[in-house]
């Protein structure tokens, strides 16, 4: 773009034509094509999906690499920085709404569908069903039609609580890293970032272990009626966000190690941190609503 204002930083940096967007779209085309075929039992779909994912990741790496390069080259004025802040904030808001859909499903199941399936009028259809939550309690069949095998629910002890601790701690370590960056103590920042990434990774492992435990010992599955559906959808969708957030933090750590960011200017870092805190907050909601209530 034109460098009409003083200095090298343009008033508002507008990137030159770029092939990244269209290349990413091509990758995503294979993703949706492959995923759509794969779930319908076509083996080649899995390959198309994998190919699309690899392609997308590869292109995104280039894209983000280029964007990071622009930031480091001082192309981004304060105004662009503000744009980044607004956009990250509203992106997180859209994620909140995405979660809201699944929390809404849980709310509906607990307050509306399960009670009314077990209500007096509905006894006409499901005479033996008791509308209690969790739908595996004593005397309940787990599902009105009895199609669900008996299962146990997942309590807050011990893994989810450990996970809560992990995530809360990671929020603290991330903040320490951030303060270190602001204080221009780069080595310290990098160290705390690695700890944060590690905490995120351990969280994911714990969750993986929890799922394995749920499947093998509690017989709690995706197919365990509405309880299993909401449990796995909420925790799984959250877990996916932790995964993405961990990768973001990892990238930021690597960028820190490459000498990116300045104590004054590091929105890439901050954006990832916002995202991480958001994931944290959602977890607290999950922890209380899914595991305790």
């Amino acid at each position: 773009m034109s460098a009409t204002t003083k200095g090298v930083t343009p008033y508002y940096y507008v990137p030159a034509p770029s092939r990244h967007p269209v290349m990413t779209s091509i990758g995503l085309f294979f993703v949706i094509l492959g995923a759509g075929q794969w779930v319908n039992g076509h083996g080649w779909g899995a390959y198309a999906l994998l190919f699309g994912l690899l392609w997308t990741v590869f292109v995104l790496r280039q894209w983000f690499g280029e964007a990071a390069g622009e930031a480091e080259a001082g192309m981004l004025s304060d105004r662009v920085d503000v744009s980044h802040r607004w956009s990250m904030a509203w992106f997180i808001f859209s994620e909140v709404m995405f979660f809201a859909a699944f929390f809404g499903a849980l709310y509906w199941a607990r307050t509306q569908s399960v009670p009314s399936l077990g209500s007096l009028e509905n006894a006409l259809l499901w005479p033996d069903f008791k509308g209690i939550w969790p739908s595996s309690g004593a005397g309940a069949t787990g599902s009105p039609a009895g199609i669900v095998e008996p299962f146990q629910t997942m309590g807050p002890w011990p893994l989810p609580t450990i996970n809560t601790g992990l995530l809360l701690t990671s929020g603290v370590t991330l903040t320490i890293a951030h303060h270190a960056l602001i204080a221009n103590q780069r080595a310290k920042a990098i160290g705390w970032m690695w700890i944060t990434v590690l905490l995120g990774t351990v969280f994911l492992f714990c969750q993986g272990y929890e799922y394995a435990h749920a499947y093998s010992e509690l017989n709690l599955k995706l197919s365990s009626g509405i309880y299993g559906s909401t449990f796995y959808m909420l925790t799984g969708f959250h877990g996916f966000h932790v995964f993405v957030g961990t990768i973001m933090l990892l990238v930021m750590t690597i960028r820190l190690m490459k000498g990116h960011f300045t104590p004054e200017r590091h929105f890439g870092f901050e954006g990832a941190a916002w995202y991480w805190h958001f994931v944290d907050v959602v977890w607290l909601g999950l922890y209380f609503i899914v595991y305790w209530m």
Partner: protein
Amino acid sequence: MSAVLHPGGHGHGHDDHAHDDHHHAPHGWRRWVFATNHKDIGTLYMLFAFTMLMIGGVLALLIRLELFQPGLQFVNPELFNQFTTMHGLIMVFGAIMPAFVGFANWMIPLQIGAGDMAFARMNNFSFWLMIPAAIMLVASFFMPGGAPAAGWTLYAPLTLQMGPSMDAGIFAMHILGASSIMGSINIVVTILNMRAPGMTLMKMPMFVWTWLITAYLLIAVMPVLAGAITMTLTDRHFGTSFFNPAGGGDPIMYQHVFWFFGHPEVYIMILPAFGIVSQIIPAFARKRLFGYASMVYATASIAILSFIVWAHHMYTTGMPLTGQLFFMYATMLISVPTGVKVFNWIATMWRGSMTFETPMLWAVGFIFVFTMGGFTGLILSMAPIDINLQDTYYVVAHFHYVLVAGSLFAMFAGVYYWGPKWTGVMYSEGRGKFHFWGSLVTFNITFFPMHFLGMAGMPRRYADYPLQFADFNMIASIGALGFGLMQVYFFLFVVVPMMRGKGAKAPQKPWEAAEGLEWEVPSPAPFHTFETPPTLDVTATKVLKF
């Protein structure tokens, strides 16, 4: 040809601030495929939307062809349902929404004095994401079992019975949702952060305001739709029971989640239309927009209310009494801010000095016909009446009045109004007027009789119907063909000549009393505008210094 297609061809007005140190846009296909220029991306959006309008329109004509007479003549009922579903999906997600994003891309930076959209590359990404999605949607006709046939609302559990195309459709909608969210974030940030100094929020053109609010609606509800169809996907393939009562789920939950998205969605499709009309009426009445502030508040009220009315689509699902009453009252309330808008437009016209060039014709036509659609909406919002009308052709009539005569008419108005700015070429008034009158008449021939059909009890999504409904259906089908032909005429005799640069050269400001920064740059708008913020006068409608 115009600058739209040839970026090098800057106009040479005195205020052309193009300097030699500009990048000149690349030529050839790269210019479009790799575009980061908001005007180019806007053009891409509009062309895409128009293509989808044609595809959706051909599907509509196939529907009308089958319904031309009772009995099955051309398609089997399964295929008919696919037509209906894909017509709805393509029109809503492929035609109307992208077209408005196209308008936003072209006009918002011009209107607020910004150099481009806040995130130019992401802007291109939003556009190119729609292509795989559109390919998947259209390709689903050729998948085993055909396209999804569960209605555009994709109600569970019917969606659970659909073939593989349903998954293609779900993933396509995910991608479209991502595109919309990114596009909206881009728009919000552009508006909040890139206004030229002096362009305070309450001085922004109405179109910008309506899009700001629309973008918020999109950010809030597109993810909810994604959630709904994700649950459909897992119910279909991963054994979950969200919508399966046998496992404790509830098909009605789908409807709640869907309409929590769906109702704001219909305002997403109308608010930018309100914005366009609010620009045009003052320009041709030669009088400032009446009640600017109340227009802004009314738009915001509509948006906020739109979150608490969704269950008016569900009166017949058997809600509790209190639910039915609540949603009835809340829905009716939306008439109040909408009414404010209508009154303000008329007050703007009142004691103006009006001329009726094509954009104004469309805008006035919009007010008239949209209001009729609004009133049928109000009638539908009365639960006792809706019990009779729900899922009948009355609803079909209602929403085509607000969507076709509302959104689409406003878009035509916008194309005629800003087209000269985009292409540098004036359209032909005669052709524009013919397009307007022809469309207005055939539109009413098509959709007015549907009110009668619905009141007499003809359900929608029917491939065949009792003989008593034959005549009105026939009239509607004839009208639909006429309406379709008018749009082909529009494309061939208005759009194509403009794009090819045939016609009188457009002045910088073709409309005597039009206000706004877009008229401060030459026609066609140069490839780059407002790269550094202009200095504005106190009304923020004139540039004092580039």
